[in-house]
């Protein structure tokens, strides 16, 4: 299973803060998962087009081309604005 978290404006647009999802067949990296989620339609379709979408795998910020494996914790969020 993948544990997927959504934060800030991404969470608000999707109307969801977390979900568990079996690693879909054929999905090897973050970009592939975004394409898979986009098949849900609506706001999910826009996820791929989100400007500056950021991703963390196992709590490390990574590029969208990064590989995924079963058991990973994945998070999608906008650029950070702390401090």
């Amino acid at each position, binding site marked *: 299973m993948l544990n997927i978290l959504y934060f800030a404006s991404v969470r608000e647009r999707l109307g969801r803060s977390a979900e568990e999802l079996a690693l879909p067949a054929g999905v090897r990296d973050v970009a592939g998962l975004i394409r898979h989620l986009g098949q849900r339609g609506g706001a999910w379709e826009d996820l791929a087009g989100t400007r500056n979408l950021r991703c963390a795998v196992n*709590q490390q*910020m990574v590029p969208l081309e990064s590989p995924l494996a079963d058991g990973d914790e994945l998070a999608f969020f906008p650029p950070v604005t702390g*401090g």
Partner: protein
Amino acid sequence: MPVRIQEADFDIGSELADLCRAEPRVGALASFVGLVRDVSGGDGVSEMSLEHYPGMTEKALAAIVGEALQRWSLIDALVIHRVGRLLPGDRIVLVAVAAAHRAEAFAACEFIMDYLKTRAPFWKRELTAAGARWVEARDDDDRAAERWRQPGG
């Protein structure tokens, strides 16, 4: 762990005193405090809320402090970042660095703050007369962090 995420306010004086207590090697203590402003993009701000990614936030901040300790000859460092609901004038963040001399303390304090701005998973949402909105990341912050990039880093 020199990193704390908390809803509660912090006392700058006692935090700075704690950082160099029983450390007579400290000759320089540099600190930065970030505050909630009552204006943003020309609009009045009445309230701010700060969201974060529990778990990753602590790791990201610890990594940033760890990198600062490697790059400069420091004696200790501290980051406190608040989350939750904040009002104009409230303290948001404290970065403090103790070193033997000021050059290291100033540089490391600025480095930690610049990296925190671009790498630590916090998100600000501000309330204005027009409603609530997420604060947009600033290109200036990316450029500020970029200054510290090292070959291969």
